[in-house]
């Protein structure tokens, strides 16, 4: 039994040695040079012919454990629209704390082209044309442009990066905006280290092998075997984005790694990283930059006592603290889940998302409230891995306060967010709730928050052809937040109203009142006394489009089909009610047709209603989308829904003299 196993391992080993190799640099075939287009996608401006990446954990030149990453690619460029592939930026992470940073070396590049006589020529990238840039305190980069690009050329380049962050094995993106003939990623992991690998996206690997390399890692007398992993994919289609989709990352095919545990080669001590949620819970609780900050409630004891003085209701207490935090902090535009020191951030009024929200949790706890942290992946950061815990997927943290059987999610980085409402960027996939004393769990981030507007128009048609009356707009929920942001862009309410009027030349605002701008939990109400130039003069017969205010004219969905879900982040609702009082001698000849359309499975509806009054009529309509996300299979229904709305809104009413 033992014997066969050994043979099997040897066989695998030799097999992988033979197959898992970077392709040779500097080789070009006539076929590659002659290629006019890519048969699998004739619309492509370029195609990756071969791509090979290799990550290994090894001992670096300074005797420290390093991750060594090598990248090598060969790309066919059909026309100038793919020239951007010849401009390369290699980003390097610097860590000021211990002055260690990633180092790039062995940058080589070459362009092959056919000269005017049809002979293949090459031009090499010169070392002095590689530009090093210190971008900011976190990042440096090397930038270069491959020389001699022209239609039909082939470019090839490679580089090597040595990173002190051995524990972050690079993600391999299999898919790009141009197709790839073949892409392969090779990973060498010494037995001291244990990683989880996962593949994202809908595409299937065409190669996945693993083997053992013996004695491949050695340092200070300790040595071990390595796992050699190879992932390959052939004929990878180009990735094409759709409108109203969340992060392309959610749909792009990629290979990801997460450290599970490792044994120090120096002292043999085993360090557990992420394996199960309970391990992560422990890790976060004891992390001085996470749990360590969350629990610093004594910092805010005195402040909180002042804020909640005299309040008995827990919601009122939480609101008082939240609102104070919103005003106190100025967000420094950095996101993240770790805070070095909430006390320092508090003192300077300035902090990252983690500084602000972890300190908010500490303050809420100081008030005796049950406050937890929720780790989130923002919309542009993509969905999180739910197969096993991947702590690196999260990039944002908010507070959750539980009062009675209610809980409220809070982000104090924006002074205009109402209590319990999160910014749009947070409405993504699932969040993980962490507390200092309970096991963590997932919650759904499609929250009960909504966007909702209601218009009410009460107008009188006058003998001079003008419509005069009152226009009221209520903005609820997230829409109210957006409205406040819009209003605050102006230095005063007057300047805001001026801008509203400025965009509507046919409308004269005679008077205005805007309420609840600073009462964040209430809908924003805008009330305008208006005069609208409807008709130059009042003829015996006039046509009236009851949708004249806010009519839908074009369908947001133009394409025949769609590959990814339509993700609006939250449900929405728009209502409009218009009442028109007619001059005594006028009457409605043809009223608008009643319309009722709905989306399958209660996904939404559009309903109109017409009521006749005392020499007046009232027309109302409602457009409602009840879901945040509509699957690609629901796309045709959404498109048709809009088509029907547009159709119905073309219809006009006749009003005539008796």
């Amino acid at each position, binding site marked *: 039994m033992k014997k066969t196993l050994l043979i099997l391992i040897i066989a695998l080993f030799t097999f992988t040695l033979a197959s898992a190799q970077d392709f040779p640099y500097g080789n070009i075939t006539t076929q590659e040079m002659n290629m006019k287009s890519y048969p699998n996608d004739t619309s492509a401006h370029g195609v990756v012919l071969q791509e090979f990446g290799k990550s290994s954990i090894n001992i670096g030149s300074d005797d420290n454990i390093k991750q060594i990453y090598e990248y090598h690619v060969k790309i066919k460029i059909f026309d100038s629209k793919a020239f951007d592939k010849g401009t390369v930026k290699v980003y390097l992470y610097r860590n000021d704390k211990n002055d260690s940073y990633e180092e790039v070396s062995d940058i080589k590049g070459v362009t092959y082209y056919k000269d005017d006589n049809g002979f293949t020529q090459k031009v090499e990238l010169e070392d002095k044309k590689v530009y090093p840039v210190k971008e900011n305190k976190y990042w440096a980069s090397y930038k270069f442009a491959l020389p001699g690009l022209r239609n039909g050329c082939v470019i090839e380049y490679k580089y090597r990066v040595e990173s002190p962050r051995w524990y972050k094995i690079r993600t391999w993106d299999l898919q790009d905006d141009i197709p790839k003939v073949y892409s392969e990623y090779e990973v060498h992991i010494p037995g001291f280290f244990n990683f989880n690998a996962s593949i994202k996206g809908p595409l299937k690997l065409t190669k996945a092998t693993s083997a053992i390399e013996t004695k491949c890692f050695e340092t200070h007398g300790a040595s071990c075997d390595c796992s050699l992993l190879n992932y390959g994919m052939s004929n990878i289609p180009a990735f094409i984005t759709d409108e109203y989709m969340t992060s392309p990352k959610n749909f792009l095919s990629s290979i990801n790694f997460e450290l599970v545990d490792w044994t120090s080669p120096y002292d043999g001590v085993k360090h557990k990283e992420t394996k199960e949620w309970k391990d992560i819970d422990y890790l976060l609780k004891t992390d001085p930059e996470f749990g360590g900050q969350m629990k610093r409630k004594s910092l805010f004891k005195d402040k909180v006592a002042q804020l909640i003085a005299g309040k008995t209701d827990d919601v009122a207490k939480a609101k008082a603290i939240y609102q104070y935090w919103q005003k106190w902090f100025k967000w420094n535009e950095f996101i993240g889940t770790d805070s070095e020191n909430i006390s320092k951030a508090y003192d300077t009024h300035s902090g990252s998302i983690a500084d602000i929200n972890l300190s908010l949790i500490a303050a809420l706890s100081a008030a005796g409230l049950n406050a937890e942290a929720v780790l989130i992946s923002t919309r542009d950061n993509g969905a999180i891995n739910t197969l096993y815990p991947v702590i690196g997927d999260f990039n944002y943290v908010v507070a959750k306060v539980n009062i009675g059987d209610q809980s409220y999610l809070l982000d104090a980085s924006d002074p205009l967010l109402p209590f319990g409402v999160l910014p749009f960027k947070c409405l993504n996939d699932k969040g993980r709730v962490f507390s200092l004393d309970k096991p963590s769990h997932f919650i759904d981030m499609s929250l009960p928050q909504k966007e909702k507007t209601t218009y009410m128009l009460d107008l009188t048609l006058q003998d001079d052809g003008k419509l005069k009356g009152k226009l009221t707009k209520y903005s609820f929920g997230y829409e109210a937040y957006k409205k406040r942001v819009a209003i605050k862009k102006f*230095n005063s309410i007057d300047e805001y109203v001026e801008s509203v009027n400025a965009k509507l030349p046919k409308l004269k605002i005679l008077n205005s009142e805007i309420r609840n701008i600073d009462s964040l939990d209430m809908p924003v109400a805008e009330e305008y006394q208006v005069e609208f130039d409807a008709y130059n003069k009042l003829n015996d017969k006039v046509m009236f489009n009851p949708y004249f205010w806010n009519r839908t004219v074009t369908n947001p969905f133009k394409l025949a089909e769609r590959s990814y879900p339509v993700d609006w982040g939250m449900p929405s609702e728009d209502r409009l009610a218009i009442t028109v009082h007619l001059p005594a001698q006028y009457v409605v000849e043809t009223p608008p047709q009643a319309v009722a359309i709905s989306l399958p499975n209660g996904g939404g509806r559009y309903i109109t209603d017409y009521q006749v009054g005392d020499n007046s009529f009232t027309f109302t309509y409602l457009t409602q989308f009840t879901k945040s996300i509509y699957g690609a299979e629901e796309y045709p229904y959404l498109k048709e829904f809009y088509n029907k709305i547009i159709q119905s809104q073309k*219809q006009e009413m006749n009003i005539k003299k008796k």
Partner: protein
Amino acid sequence: MMRKAILFFCLIGSFTASKAQQNYDASLIPKELLPYAGAVVRDNEVSIEVKDLDNAVYHVKQVITVLNKNGDNDAHIVVWHDKDRVIKNIKGVIYNQFGQQTGKFSESDFEDESAWDGFSLFLDTRIKHYLPSITEYPYTIAYEYEERSKQTLNFDEWIPNPYTGVSVEKSSFTFICKPDFNIRYKETNIPVKAIIGTNAHGLKTYSWQLNNLKAIKNEPLSPYFKSYSSSVMISPEKFVYYGISGSYTNWKDLGKWINDKLVADRKQLPFETIEHIKDITRDITDPKLKAKKIYEYMQAKTHYISIQVGIGGFQPFLASDVDHQNYGDCKALVNYTQALLKAVNIDSYYCFVKSGRNHNVSLLSDFASMNQADHIILCVPFKNDTTWADCTSQTIPFGYMGDFTDNRTVLALTPDGGKLMHTPKYTTANNLESRKANFTINEAGELSGNMATTFKGVDYEDRDYLINEPKTEQYKILQRVYPINNMDIDKLDLKQDKSFDPVTTENIKLHARDYASVDGNKLYFSLNSVDRETYIPRQVRNRLNDVYITRGSTDEDEIIYTIPAGYHLEKNPLNVTLNKPFGNFRASMVLEGNHLIYKRKFQLHDGTYNKQVYPDVVDFYQEVVDADAYNVVLVKN
């Protein structure tokens, strides 16, 4: 006792107040500076002292009060620097709304980052920046710094009120130099002229000061910012730039210096390239066609990449370098094209231009200075036919300027030195988008038919972005371009004629279900489904600026709809004619049998019009938008 104590504090208070140079209490800001302002510059003092030809020292002091969140950005301190421009002693103080000091900051609070202009691959400029975190408004920050510059060719222009939404209480500018350092200066919209004097050290001083400038509002259709804002530009007579010395008092001399020192000797090409160029043009006799051939060769071979290193971004890469690398920025590509043309003895000029689509900005004919242009183009002076070309595009035809560099004064480097020249203008008639369509609408509301459009003048480029895309992509884009719901394209033919008078033509065969909405015996549809104006410039209260229309244009559309037999019109047919100095519009429809013929012509005339005309412009657009939204209602007989 109590009273005494209060008195004592009062004394201290007044003592510190008098000791402080200024009181920055926000309530002291004059009321007329508040409208439309998110921030108010309380005091700005800039001085430039030329100590030597290679040593200029700037002292900058700024005190700014931020009134609300919108003004935060104006308190964001950003200073650029590079090897030749070093920042020193940067520090500042923060005051609350009552003008009491609440904090301070110094160089260690600043972040140093690589600058990025939005398009360059590499730029050797860096920025230092700092934004104080203050959550209570209003607040005031006061800061100062020193800059040492090793060149005296360019001096920062003084623009006391450069941003919208900021008003200015006081701003001053002083230029200090030795008595023998001659300068020329250009004042624009400066009501109080320069005060020229001598300081205690015997140095010559020029100073300007402006007070109480109201916040600038964004007004649509405004002329170029600098035509209505205040500024002072300074040019030296003698200077040193990156170790190269020179002198000039006019465009001719400046052009000569640039040419001799920075551009002239960068045109050597490898022998093979010269031979190749001779080869490919051997059979062409007309020099203009020769130049066209060479330009197209350059376009096919190179592409634009901006890398700004070395002599301040003014010196082009060597032509031989571009020949080898196949890329370059505007300077490098023009220089390279010149070298290629030279191979067949065609002379050409390297030209400095201020680029931009929204405004045609000319170099100042009465004031030569280095910092007025931002782009380089090529001029080929054929006999009686001066041809212009931008060398950064791989697709535009030879001689085509487009709307990026048209109709403006530029500086050409000729063998006799710098010379101001004017680029061609595209007129109202030149910029033509002309469309003819034949559509059928059936009883079910489906639209089908053909549509042919030609684009000329600056409109020639309207389809550039999709010309080389695959068909599927072109269909998708055109579905967004045309406001026809449910549009399906059956056939598309898109062509560009790259002659000296270039034309783009687009032929589409299409159909769209539910184009018309059917309601019992009625049929509703949009009359203008292909060229609908939706823009209305917003109304402006108390407008300050004249109305500026950058270039003229003509849109002509004619659609013949074949409708089902037996229908008549329910409401008055559309018939609108508008004639204004700045534009004309005519739209009409007639029903002849079962043919509904729609004609539309929309013209804008370039020019600057008195600000009083502005409400007319708004009304004009409103009427155009209304006419374009006309809904046809057909009723069965």
